[in-house]
């Protein structure tokens, strides 16, 4: 008989335990491979979308001025030597509805891209899921995102009405539906493609040409850029493919990394399962191993037996895991596509991703097998003669393997981390993982005192069964510690996710609330003149104050350098009176007074921190080609209004904006309600006004909930990943308790002989499992909250400015979840315990 046979028989002797362990490894590998494949789908999608959005164009020339390029400028571009084709695109936000009637449906605003159909086809290929492209001679044709249309019951051939358009212009007709991987991906699918002339005619106004895509002769991109710089009169920005990719990938930032981390968590939990299972096998087989050693088997050979068992579990688990992982990836991709949270392609079968997951599965499982294998190698022939010897059962003896295991997995994870780490920098991740490590190790060390406290309610509830269940936890503290540790890791992920999400939600609410005075605003599809519009809006019922937010592009100059920036002119009196804007540096009243007096600016905290600006610093703002205007920083604010750049807007007074930059128009107007007017009446009046003006009503509550919804979609997916890790930890409990029950069969038989019913025996085991789960849940709360602190506290204030927002109901749910999963996991061992035959078991042991 060969050693491999012994190894194999060791596994087949306990088929259920072996199967559970393999399932644990398989689930871990499935999550890693699934998330890797989903990440691949997301990054491929961005690449493809960017390529299709730019098409054959090498350069995108974007107008600096919101009024866009003039027809003459577009013509100038077209005539630059080396330019083969110039495709101008006009942008305008429009509100749409179905054709009037009893079933009329009104839709949220869309971004209309006005194109020249003939030029367009020469520049890019549209990814159409149905229908055809715009036909010359049919200006009313439009293209919509297929998913957007389908969600609203629209199909090719249906007609749409543009709210506020000229009634003599024919209705727009849907001729094609765009897929998610090209132009259709823009604005998260809230996009419409139309003939530019139709857009102008429909509103009797020229839609601004905001960018022009240039197809250039191969290798002449640099020349064309130089010609643009020297020959263009209007200010512009040149973008290339990489810039388009960055813009499109904003939603996926962080997704890939976090998804992969969750896969990793599952793998760690799975590795605990392997380590525990093999350790239990060792504990059971000590006598046999001692006999084999007495018969001449070397320590190295014994180690080989255990490593072979680990290898078998690793290979089978990893292969099964890859298969399940592909299905899992398909589910993730389907979910992401349905929620539109992240851009994804179809399921990519990437051999490299599968190989990484496979190797990680094998490596982690084998690493987990090394400890029990090494302990087995230390079994001496004398151990065969000693009763109940369980080598390697000292607490620290196993705990150090928790530490080593986690370190191995973390190192593997960091090495294979697939994407840029975004705001969640390495120090934050390292600190979070260190907290996880300390939390699990400490809980395992303090298991006895913890079980005495946590077990108290169970003793009260279950009586003697609870007492015995709690006492049983101390039977093999290392094994229990390892099992609870796995649960803590999985539940900590749930807690961290919940706390981080809640903090992000609180921040979103605080942000929106602080930048929208009065909580209401109307956004027009085009900027409106302040002098003519303001008196009209002041007449809306219940309005106490209305203030335009006059945003415009500018550049910030620092010596010879300049960079694009957004500036917004606001009315300091209204913002001050409504308590808007959160000042983190500078005295509030003074800051608003300075703004009112002119020459002052409010800067957002992230920008101030990046550019080393403080109260009293100066900022030079200018319009391209014009002289700089110097502003003194009057205050640093936690959040600012959104702008064209990711930094958000610099805030100056409306007077300065108009007098120094000629910003006399505004798209967004904020409204403050009269104190005695009911909320509902005010809202209704604004809704009516927005409808009349074909504009969009924005509310602080609505904007917050939009942000929260998009956050919840992604968090929902991560929650599923974390819950799968909890399931794996549950398998660990089944395994541990299963063995524990068999080990103490004699005691259970004695209890039965003294009148313990089968129901009481089951309750005892379930109580034991539940106490484990409750300890895991409580420890996970502490660990998870501290991990969240590491992530939230160390991340840019823009993302988590509201600080740590603890979702108390979630924390309670985690303890209940841990207890519930553990109790469920305890059901099978409980049945095993109840079936222990009294007479045979006592006789066998005597």
């Amino acid at each position, binding site marked *: 008989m060969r050693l491999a046979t012994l190894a194999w028989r060791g596994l087949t002797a306990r088929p259920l335990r072996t199967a559970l362990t393999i399932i644990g490894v398989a689930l871990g590998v499935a999550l890693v491979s699934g998330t890797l494949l989903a990440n691949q789908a997301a990054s491929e999608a961005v690449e493809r979308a960017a390529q299709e959005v730019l098409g054959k164009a090498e350069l995108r020339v974007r107008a600096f001025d919101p009024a866009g390029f003039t027809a003459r400028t577009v013509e100038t571009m077209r005539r630059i030597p080396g330019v083969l084709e110039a495709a101008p695109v006009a942008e305008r936000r429009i509100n749409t509805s179905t054709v009037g009637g009893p079933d009329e449906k009104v839709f949220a605003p869309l971004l209309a891209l006005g194109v020249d159909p003939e030029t367009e086809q020469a520049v890019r290929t549209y990814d159409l899921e149905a229908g055809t492209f715009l036909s010359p001679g049919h200006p009313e044709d439009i293209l919509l995102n297929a998913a957007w249309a389908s969600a609203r019951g629209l199909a090719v051939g249906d007609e749409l009405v543009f709210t506020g358009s000229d009634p003599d212009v024919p209705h727009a007709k849907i001729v094609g539906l765009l897929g998610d991987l090209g132009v259709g991906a823009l604005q998260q699918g809230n996009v419409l493609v139309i003939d530019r002339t139709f857009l102008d005619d429909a509103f009797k106004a020229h839609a601004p040409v905001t960018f022009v895509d240039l197809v250039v002769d191969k290798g002449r991109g640099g020349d064309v850029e130089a010609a643009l710089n020297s020959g263009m009169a209007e200010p512009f920005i040149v973008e290339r493919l990489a810039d388009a990719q960055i813009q499109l990938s904003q939603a996926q930032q962080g997704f890939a990394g976090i998804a992969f981390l969750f896969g990793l968590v599952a793998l760690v939990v799975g590795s605990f399962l392997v380590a525990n299972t093999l350790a239990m096998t060792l504990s059971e087989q000590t006598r046999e191993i001692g006999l084999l050693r007495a018969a001449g088997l070397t320590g190295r050979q014994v180690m080989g037996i255990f490593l072979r068992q680990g290898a078998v579990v690793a290979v089978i688990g990893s292969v099964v895991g890859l298969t399940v992982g592909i299905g899992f990836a398909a589910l993730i991709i389907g979910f992401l596509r349905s929620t539109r949270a992240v851009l994804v392609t179809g399921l990519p079968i990437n051999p490299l991703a599968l190989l990484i997951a496979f190797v990680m599965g094998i490596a982690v499982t084998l690493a987990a097998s090394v400890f029990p294998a090494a302990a087995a190698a230390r079994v001496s022939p004398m151990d065969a003669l000693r009763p109940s010897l369980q080598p390697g059962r000292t607490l620290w003896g196993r705990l150090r393997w928790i530490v080593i295991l986690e370190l191995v997995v973390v190192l593997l994870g960091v090495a294979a981390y697939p994407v840029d780490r975004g705001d969640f920098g390495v120090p934050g991740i390292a600190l979070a993982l260190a907290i996880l490590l300390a939390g699990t190790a400490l809980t395992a060390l303090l298991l006895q005192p913890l079980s005495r406290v946590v077990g108290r309610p169970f003793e009260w509830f279950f*009586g*003697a069964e609870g*007492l*015995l269940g709690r*006492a*049983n936890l*101390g*039977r093999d503290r290392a094994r229990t510690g390892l099992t609870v540790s796995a649960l803590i890791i999985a539940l900590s992920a749930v807690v961290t996710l919940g706390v981080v999400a809640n903090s992000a939600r609180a921040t979103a609410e605080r942000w929106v609330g602080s930048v929208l005075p009065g909580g209401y605003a109307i956004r027009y599809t085009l900027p409106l003149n302040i002098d003519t519009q303001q008196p009209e809006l002041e007449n809306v019922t219940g309005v106490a104050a209305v203030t335009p937010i006059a945003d415009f592009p500018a550049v910030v100059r620092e010596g010879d350098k300049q960079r694009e920036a957004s500036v917004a002119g606001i009315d300091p009196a209204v913002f001050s009176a409504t308590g808007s804007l959160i000042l983190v540096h500078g005295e509030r009243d003074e800051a608003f007074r300075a703004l009112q007096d002119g020459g002052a600016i409010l800067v957002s905290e992230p920008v101030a921190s990046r550019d080393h600006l403080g109260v009293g610093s100066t900022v030079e703002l200018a319009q391209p080609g014009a002289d700089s205007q110097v502003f003194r920083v009057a205050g640093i604010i936690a959040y600012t209004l959104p702008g064209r750049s990711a930094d958000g807007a610099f805030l100056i007074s409306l007077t300065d904006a108009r007098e120094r930059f000629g910003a006399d128009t505004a798209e967004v107007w904020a409204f403050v309600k009269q104190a005695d007017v009911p909320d509902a009446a005010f809202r209704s009046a604004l809704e009516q006004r927005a409808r009349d003006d074909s504009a969009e009503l924005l509310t602080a509550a609505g904007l917050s909930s939009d942000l929260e919804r998009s956050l919840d979609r992604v968090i929902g997916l991560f929650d599923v990943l974390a819950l799968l890790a909890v399931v794996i930890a549950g398998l660990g409990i089944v395994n541990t308790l299963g063995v524990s029950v068999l080990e103490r069969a*004699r*005691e259970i038989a*004695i*209890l*039965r*002989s*003294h*009148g*313990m*019913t*089968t*129901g*009481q025996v089951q309750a005892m085991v379930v109580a034991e499992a539940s106490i484990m789960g409750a300890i895991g849940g409580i420890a996970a709360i502490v660990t998870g909250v501290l991990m969240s602190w590491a992530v939230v506290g160390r991340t840019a204030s823009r993302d988590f400015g509201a600080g740590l927002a603890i979702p108390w109901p979630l924390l309670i749910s985690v303890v209940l979840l841990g207890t519930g999963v553990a109790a469920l996991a305890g059901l099978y061992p409980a049945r095993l315990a109840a079936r222990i035959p*009294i*007479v045979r078991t*006592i*006789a066998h*042991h*005597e």
Partner: protein
Amino acid sequence: MILEAHDLVKRYPLGDGSVDALRGVSLSVAKGEFIAIMGSSGSGKSTMLHLLGGLDRPSEGNVLIDGVNISQLNDEEATLTRREKTGFVFQFFNLISLLNVAENVALPFLIAGDSLSTHRERVDALLDLVGLSDKAKHRPDQLSAGEQQRVALARALANEPAILLADEPTGNLDFVTGTEILDLIWDSCDRLGQTIVLVTHDARAAAYADRVLIVRDGTIRDEIELGRRRDHEARPLITRLAALGL
């Protein structure tokens, strides 16, 4: 009669057929009586004890404990009857290692849903009876073998069972310690009126009984009436056994 057995048969499957461990055993035990069941290994004496205590169910026949036919009860009912009416002492002490001495003694109460504090007096009295009052907080592994068996005896007596069933209680003890345990068992019978059924292959232990049943090949072959005696001299029993050719 506190304990009655009628035509007990215990059959175990073996290959395609079966083997009879007991072949029609009947007996009755009066309240307060001390009987010993003797026999060689494999004679069926332990099987008989398991059936009498309700740990196992007979293939045929009935066992009545205090008038309750436990052979007709389902597992749950049999367990509850066992909890109320029987106490067991096994050869290997079988204490619960995670509980201390007092908690082990109180185990029948704990199992019944009561707390140790409710039965503190009874537990203290039992510990006093077995001479372990000073070791109430000790763990089983901190006790000697004899002390562990004394705890097991106290536990078996805790709920004042109708019958105390002891399976080779001295089989794992030295002579002196074994004698101490037998003295305690006898004392509980003689002074407290406890009914005892003792299974042993040791004539010295059986000599404590009022009556000795000799089991061979699954049946009661002989019965030796010794009567209640303060002197537990084994010689008269050994002589009787020799007369029977044992």
